[in-house]
């Protein structure tokens, strides 16, 4: 294999690694060796041979395919493509900065982060006008002093932060702003490939709060798959480890037939305790925008794991007697009619109820699933309750529909994370990845 081809392959592996495909050294060697066997004349064969050696999951296959199509093109075409991408980004940055410069208080530009400037450039004209009107009123209002700027600035930041979720790009990286965009060839191709995959699967990267009724079948499929996985994993955990120690009583009694010789050994069977699932779903006002997801979560989980105990909570808590309902619509109606629907949130109170309720089965074979945004009253009580609950149960999984990068803004969340596995399920892709943890 000549140096040019080898160099090209190594650069391609770098692109894959940047895009999130973990290509190990041995896999890279396998891929190069594979090309020796199949040759490099047929593009389809080369693609299949490389994919067999370096892309080891369905998701990696998709990334590989997108990266391959972008990387292995005519060198001149690739140079133009990289130059064009770099220029387009620089242009976009300038536009964002210019657009944000119109946000002024008494002639002074507001001090906003690059991320918020980007949000401002992406919002609709009416939303933008609303902010500008507010700034205009604030700047020219009676007794408005220049040192009021930080207050005005904070109000604008608050508005933009609220709009951030709506316009957030579904991105795995902590920072997916254009200001953090990569400049290397590998970075540009990898980011472009990621973007293409996102566009192709726009639904699964959609924020859960923006999911519409027409998207619900896909949401239902995912939750059902997750529930099925949960059911299977609890069942397989029961069977794990095969046999236990020697069963002397049965061995001796069966040896009578062979004149006392211990001819056939009998082993004890391992019986794990029957595992139970307990779900705690937050149906408070702050979770209202995710209500479609939460309602489907409860009804689908019930369809797959009928033995689960389901509770809904806000400031109070209610147990759902799901077995008395026949359809998922009945379950959803019952929840929306309950006293806890769209109230404040008190996670500590809900956990306290679970810990003290004699009907709630909370022991070392219980798996607790909490669905909540973790925005609660009385954080210390909630944290203490969670600590007590985690000591009693097998595992607590917390599905949080808020994007992980915003968790730092939620009071007490770091404390909650110490006692449970908190999983980001802000979109269907994240939810699907969270399912794999069960």
């Amino acid at each position, binding site marked *: 294999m000549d140096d040019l081809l080898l160099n090209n392959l190594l650069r391609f592996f770098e692109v894959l690694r940047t895009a999130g495909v973990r290509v190990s050294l041995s896999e890279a060697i396998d891929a190069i060796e594979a090309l020796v066997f199949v040759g490099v004349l047929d593009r389809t064969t080369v693609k299949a041979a490389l994919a067999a050696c370096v892309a*080891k*999951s*369905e998701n990696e296959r998709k990334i590989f395919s997108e990266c391959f199509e972008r990387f292995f093109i005519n060198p001149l075409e690739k140079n133009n493509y990289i130059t064009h991408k770099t220029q387009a980004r620089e242009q976009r940055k300038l536009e964002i900065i210019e657009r944000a410069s119109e946000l002024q208080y008494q002639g002074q530009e507001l001090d906003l982060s690059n991320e918020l400037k980007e949000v401002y450039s992406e919002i609709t004209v009416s939303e933008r006008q609303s902010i500008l009107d507010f700034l205009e009123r604030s700047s020219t209002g009676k007794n408005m002093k220049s040192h009021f700027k930080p207050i005005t600035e904070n109000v604008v930041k608050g508005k933009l932060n609220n709009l951030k979720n709506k316009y957030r790009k579904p991105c795995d990286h902590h920072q997916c702003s254009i200001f953090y965009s990569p400049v290397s060839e590998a970075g540009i191709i990898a980011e472009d490939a990621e973007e293409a995959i996102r566009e192709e699967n726009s639904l699964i990267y959609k924020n859960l709060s923006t999911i519409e009724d027409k998207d619900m079948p*896909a949401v239902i499929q995912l939750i059902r798959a997750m529930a099925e996985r949960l059911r*299977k994993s609890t069942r397989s955990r029961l*069977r794990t480890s095969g046999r236990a120690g020697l069963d002397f009583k049965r061995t001796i009694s069966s040896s009578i037939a062979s004149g006392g010789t211990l001819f056939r*050994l009998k082993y004890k069977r391992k019986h794990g305790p029957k595992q139970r699932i307990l779900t705690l779903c937050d149906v408070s006002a702050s979770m209202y925008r995710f209500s479609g997801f939460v309602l489907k979560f409860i009804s689908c989980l019930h369809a797959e794991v009928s033995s689960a105990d389901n509770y809904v909570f806000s400031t109070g808590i209610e147990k759902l007697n799901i077995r008395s309902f026949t359809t998922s619509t009945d379950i959803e109606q019952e929840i929306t009619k309950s006293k806890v629907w769209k109230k404040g949130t008190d996670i500590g109170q809900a956990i306290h109820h679970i810990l003290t309720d004699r009907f709630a089965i909370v022991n070392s074979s219980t798996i607790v699933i909490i669905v909540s945004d973790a925005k609660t009253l009385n954080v210390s009580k909630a944290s203490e309750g969670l600590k007590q609950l985690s000591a009693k149960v097998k595992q607590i999984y917390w599905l949080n529909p808020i994007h992980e990068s915003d968790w730092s803004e939620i009071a007490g969340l770091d404390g909650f994370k110490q006692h449970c596995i908190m999983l980001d399920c802000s979109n269907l892709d994240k939810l699907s990845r969270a399912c*794999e943890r069960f």
Partner: protein
Amino acid sequence: MDLSTLRKALEGERYVFDDNLLTTLYIAIKLGKPLLIEGAAGVGKTEVAKVLAAAYGVELTRLQCYGGLDEAKALYEWNYQKQLLSIQLNLKQSSGKTGGAETDGKTSQGNAADQAVVSGDANGREAECGDKRLEGLFSRDFLLERPLLKAISSDREEVLLIDEIDKADEEFEAFLLELLSDFQVSIPELGTVKAKMRPVIVLTSNNTRQLSDALRRRCAYLFIEYPTIEKEYAIINAKIPGVPAKLAADVAAAAAYLRNNEKIFKKPSIAETLDWASALMALDQKRLDEESAAKTVGFMLKNQEDILEFSEDGGFGRFIAEQLT
């Protein structure tokens, strides 16, 4: 085996495949890597191993995985009963010999010194013999070979299928790593058993749980998607001789229609499509119509919820109106 020979061998088995599958299979064989095949249930993952075994002209060695599967069922087990019988037989033989020595002793009572020497030698020989017998108890003669050991002990190239690896426990998956990377297994009493001829290993997974990166790294990878309408049409024709062409085309289109319906949870597999086509043939259908499709829907949809969802969505009537007329 080169690429064109492999292609001919697969075609000879009436297996419908694409270039991607062929290249991946060829690379796995050439690199001597196990092949990990993932995809939804019923897309033909197991069939790859069966066809490969037929192409090699060997019997397929198959290990079906399940929760609780351990090395005793997958690799080897000591034949406890045989070991016991051997001990009993040896005991009888040695007691016979000892009895003989005692009789000889009685006849030669006069020479006590000689007897002491003979008795000392006999004890030494017996101890040596005992050690050898004990070693013999843990030899290959007393080993029950399970599929994995059988595959690597074979003198000729075997095809080993480790089916539905995702159903096995994580401990078993970790146990497989030595076999998959070095084609050897360690048996504490015997040492390391290396493969005489590297078997072609095919692992399949329905993706019900994530397999470890360590296992993935050791394998070549193939993902099989549901077939396109054209491919499924070719499969129906290849597997069901005499199927009316229009019926095969309708069934392939209907299967794709069902799989694309997001409300259906359990998507029909290729095997189910084949069963359905056979059922429709048994009803003397030359084409798919609403009545016969409704009567035989149970071949494609295997739970009541999916059947209800599908009928609420217009059922086969809608499919026929939209796509077959």
